[in-house]
Structure formats: C-alpha cells, structure tokens
C-alpha cells in the first residue's frame, strides 16, 4: 500500500509542488527557472481565476445547502420501513452510480434548447412559447450545472443520513412521543443532535465533490466564463496556456483551500456538539 502511495501519489505530488515555485512551460518541462511565489501572486491577480473561484464558491455553497436540506428530508421519509422501500432506495441510488460523463450526456439532452426534454415539456404545457435557453443563460447556467451535480450527489447523502437515523434507538423516540412532544420537536431535539457527526462526513464528501467539479460543466457549456469551475481554469492554464508552473500552483491552492475548509468544518461541527 505504501509503495502504491509513494509511487503514484506522493512522488508526483512532490514534483508538482516543486514545479509550482518555478516558471515552467509545458512545452519545455526541463528548463525551469525559480520564481518563488511569483506563480501564486499571478494567480490572485488573474481575473479569470477570480471568476472561477467565485463560480466554485457558488457551487460549493449551493451544493452543500441543497444536499443537506433535501438529504435530511428524503431520509426522514425513508427511514421507517414501508413496502417497496428496498426498491425505492435502489432507484434512488441510481444517479450516483452513473459515470459523470454519461450524466453530462443525459443532461445536455435534457437542457438542449430545441430538442431537449425540458423545453418540450414546458412548451407542451404552454408555460413557455419560445424555446428557453438553459445552459448558456447567464442568470441560470450556474444553477443548471449545480443541479446536475446535486442530482448525482444527493442520493448518496440521503442514504447516509437515512442509515444514521435508523441507528437512533427506537426507545428514545418512543419515550419522547410519550412525553407528548410532537413529531417536529422530536426531530429537532432527538434526531438532529445525533446527526452532527454524520453531517461532518456528508459535508466533507459534498465539498470534495463540488470543488472537484469538472466533467459536467466542461461537457455542458465548454469554457463559458460564467460556469467555469476552478478545475477547468486550472486545466486551461496548464494545458492550454502551457503554463505548468502556474497550473500546478493553482492545483495546490485548490487542494489546500479544500483541506482548510474541511478542517474548519470539523472545528465548527465539534464546537456545535459541545454547545448543546
């Protein structure tokens, strides 16, 4: 295991970190020129990077919010046994199991202005007269992209929540209802406090997923600036501008921001637990 890790992760990672402090062109990787943190400084003054950063922030915030809220709701309904629950859960998990590339294909066909499903439905229902543009409409393009991402992630998150809720002993819940507390109160006093740890896990999974967003926006809208994610920007810098140093610097910034975010989440959730 350690061998694998060393060979295929640690060493390449080392080289990449090293490169991020040099001026290296992808076209001539053997001539390096030390440039200190020049690459990093350039990143922060690049308006495309800033735009991509904003986009990714939007993705992270909306994805985490939607996944948590909808995830909890789905889980509350699904946690108790009912007929066909197994089948419903199986159906629910389907989007998560599909390759992201295929998701891109599926949703492109749905959002397509003239032959897509969405416009056909809306036009048939006479809600719109003209085909509506979804993916390249600056007002909603980001939302379309994140919906596709959430579509994939939500099933997993719901199921994790559901499983955790099922581990809360029935007796506690029964005792609570004997007390006369209503369903809602029961939910907030009994279930939610027990969910803190699991929240952390889903938030971490959710943020990794949202920060690593690439296939979906790239397939659906190309490099359009209002949907461009940080990883797409990184790809453009390293492989289109051939600026390996800056590209690797951005990759490092992305990784570290993500790590810091996760640590912050951990601290927040820990503190939250102590307060109650």
């Amino acid at each position: 295991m350690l061998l694998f890790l060393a060979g295929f992760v640690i060493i390449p990672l080392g080289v990449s970190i090293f490169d991020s402090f040099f001026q290296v062109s992808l076209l001539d990787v053997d001539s390096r020129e030390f440039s200190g943190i020049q690459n990093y400084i350039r990143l922060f003054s690049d308006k495309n990077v800033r735009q991509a950063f904003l986009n990714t922030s939007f993705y992270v915030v909306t994805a985490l919010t939607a996944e948590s809220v909808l995830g909890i709701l789905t889980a509350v309904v699904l946690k108790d046994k009912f007929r066909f629950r197994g089948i419903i859960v199986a159906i629910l998990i389907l989007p998560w199991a599909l390759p992201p590339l295929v998701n891109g294909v599926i949703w492109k066909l749905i959002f397509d202005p003239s032959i897509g499903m969405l416009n056909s439905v809306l036009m048939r229902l006479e809600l719109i007269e003209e085909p509506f543009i979804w993916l390249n409409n600056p007002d909603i393009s980001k939302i379309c992209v994140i919906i596709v991402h959430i579509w994939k992630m939500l099933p997993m998150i719901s199921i994790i929540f559901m499983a955790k809720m099922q581990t809360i002993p029935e007796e506690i819940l029964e005792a609570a209802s004997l007390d006369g507390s209503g369903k809602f109160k029961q939910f907030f006093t009994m279930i939610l406090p027990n969910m803190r740890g699991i929240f952390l896990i889903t938030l971490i999974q959710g943020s990794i997923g949202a920060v690593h967003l690439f296939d979906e926006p790239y397939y659906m809208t190309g490099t359009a600036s209002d949907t461009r994610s940080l990883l797409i920007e990184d790809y453009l810098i390293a492989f289109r501008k051939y600026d390996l140093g800056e590209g690797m610097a951005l990759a490092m910034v992305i990784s570290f921001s993500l790590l810091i975010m996760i640590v912050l989440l951990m601290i927040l959730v820990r503190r939250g637990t102590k307060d109650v």
Partner: protein
Amino acid sequence: MAGCKGEEKKETKAANDSTQSQDGEEITVLLPPWYEEGLTAAIPDFEEKTGISVKLEIMEWDPLRDRIVQSCTSNKAPADITEFSWDWVGTFGAAGWYEPLNDYMDEDFWEDCLTKDSYLYEGNYLAVPIYNDFRMTYLNTKDFSEAGISEIPTDAFELLEAAEKIKEQGIEEYPVSLPLSATAGATTPWFMLTKSLGGELFDDNYKALFTEKDSAGYQAMEWIMKAYEEELVNPAAVDYQGTDIVDHYMNGDGSIDIAGWSGNVTEYFNADKSAISDSVEVVKVPGANGSSRTYSLLEGIGIPAASEHKEAAAEFIKYINTEEFLKTFFVDYGIFPSSQKVIDSLIESEDIPGGEVVSEVLGTIEPLFPQGAPEWYGTWEGETATIMNQMAKGEMSLEEGLKAIADSADELNEG
C-alpha cells in the same frame, strides 16, 4: 539540417533490421474520429503492399492535442504519425517536436499541394496537409426564392438584409446558422468574415486591428452580433457548437450556413442524409465591394521527431496521398484534398457538387495569419470564443468584447 540529423540517427539505429526493408515494422497513427472509417478501409491494402502494419488510434480533438503535448514534453512520440492542425505550427515548430518532411516527399508532390505553406516553419515543412478544411457559405436557395429574392447578394451586409426579409416573411424563423457557445468553433465565422470583408486580424507585430469602428474585424463582429440580436440566428446558438449547427442545418433549419465546412459539400448534397439536398447551393463567402476571401482550418499529418519508425511512417503518408486514395477519401468520407490535380479531376468527374464555385472559392483561400500563426493562437482562440459567448449573452458590449479580445492577444503576446 535537423531533418538530416534525425535520419542519420535513425539509420544507425535501425541498421540491423533495415536489410529487411520495413517488412514487419509496425507504425501507429493518431488521428481524430473523422478519419477512422476512410483509413480503416484502406489499411489492409497498404499493409499488403508494404508489409508495414498500421495501428490506428482515434481520439477526440482536445484530448488528442493534450496527448501530443504531454508525450512530446516527455520526449516520447505520441505515435509515428499524428494529426497536425495548421495552428500548431508555431508552437510545435519552436519546440522542435516534429520531423521536417521536405525530403520525405518528392518535388512533384510539394508542387501539386495547394496548402503546403501553412506548414512551413523556418524553411521546413512540418506536416503534410490531409484535410483542406476551408470555409464556404452554403445557402438554401428555396428560402431565398420564396422570399422573392431572385439575385442572391454577394455583399455580407446585403445578405444580412436578405436574411431579415426571409425572417419577416416567416419563411424561416432563424435564417442564419452559426455557433456561439464557448467552444473553438464560435470564432470561425468571425475570422472568416474579417478576411472576406478585406481585413486582417493583426498587423505584423500582432497588434489587434479590429478595435477601430471602420475595420473589417469590427464590422465582421458587428455582423455576427447584429444577426444574433435581431434573432436572425437561433437564440439557442449560445448553446451550440459547430457540429450542432451542421446537424440542424442539414435537417432544414436555417437558410444561410455562413461558415460551412468544405467537407460538408458531400453531406449537404447527399439526399440520404440531408433534407435540403435539392435546394442547397454553395457560394463564395460574402464580402464587401465584390471581394471574397476565406481561410482554411487546415489539418495535416506529421511525424514526431521522437518516432522510431520515420521511414515506415513516410511510406504511409505517401500511400494516402496517392491520387486514387485522395479521391475515395473525398467522395466517400468528405475529406477535402489539397492536391490541385485531384481537385481538378474531381470537378471534371462532377464528384464535387457545385464544382465550379468550389474551384473559385479555392482561389480565395488565404492564410488566416499571413505573418505566421502565433504560438498563442490556440489559447487566444479559446478566450475569444468565451468572450464572443459573453457578448452574445449581453454580458459585454461590442466595444468591450473586442477590446477584451485585443487585450487578451496583447497579454499573450507579451507573456
């Protein structure tokens, strides 16, 4: 010079097996999907004739370029023959990744080749053209006659007025077809119209020439954005790539495919595939004051300097440049040739629909960059497409957009 060196090395290296000529050698050929069928059909014959076996690798465009760049930076040949797009000449030439082909092909070949100069880098031909992908304008004549337009304008702005007429009369809701998504194809109509209106994109020092109001570049962009604003272009164009446009046009949507692929001439006129085969016509690209110019997004094939089977690779390149093969390649697969001889005989045999116009258009092809394609072309093209996409979406005005495109070129030029 570099070429000679490479050959010497090769010869010493291959000394022990060179006696058996290239028998039993295997070469790999890396190309995008549109060559797959045509080449696969031909490879058995080539293998039989030469004893060289060929392995065809097919990749989509963007990953293909990434693969070439990644391999070459690691001093490994991505394949023995690869795709070589016209705009890679500057970048790949400076990096020295490709073998000069001057001596691999004979003089007759070079003389007959119309587009070879696009691959000239410091006196060396880095690739051999394979697909002469110049742009022409296709019209659906039925829409024009229904709108009462008997004479089809050759002036770009008059053509736009004709499109307005077609729209007003309800013949075609969106008469003009062009893509405006943030993918490379969006830039082609702009580049082409700039040429056709008699202008250039940059001066000799790569300073932008399109920011002034009376420049061809400015007017060409105005043409496109006006067409989009007036909804002569389907509003959905901001979602569409070049390929989507072709599919919709072939299906009968739109009257004017302003910057159509040369290879589509076989598709559009093919009654099995196209709903407009009876009424489509090819014309010279509309320009101004009776002029017309276009450019070619030429594709070629080259041999990476790191290849270990250069001679065998050259054999294959020669094979697919035989007259016979080029003809089938065009007739059956729509790959437009660069050989004058082949084009002439195709026109004579009436295998090119609208052959006369096509041959006229051929005379108007000019390099997009007479001063040489800049190394940063690929990046700039991507950024330009992104900005045009933003302009169409109303996030930038015409002036702002063109200025941003110019700034991006300046920045790349300095960096």
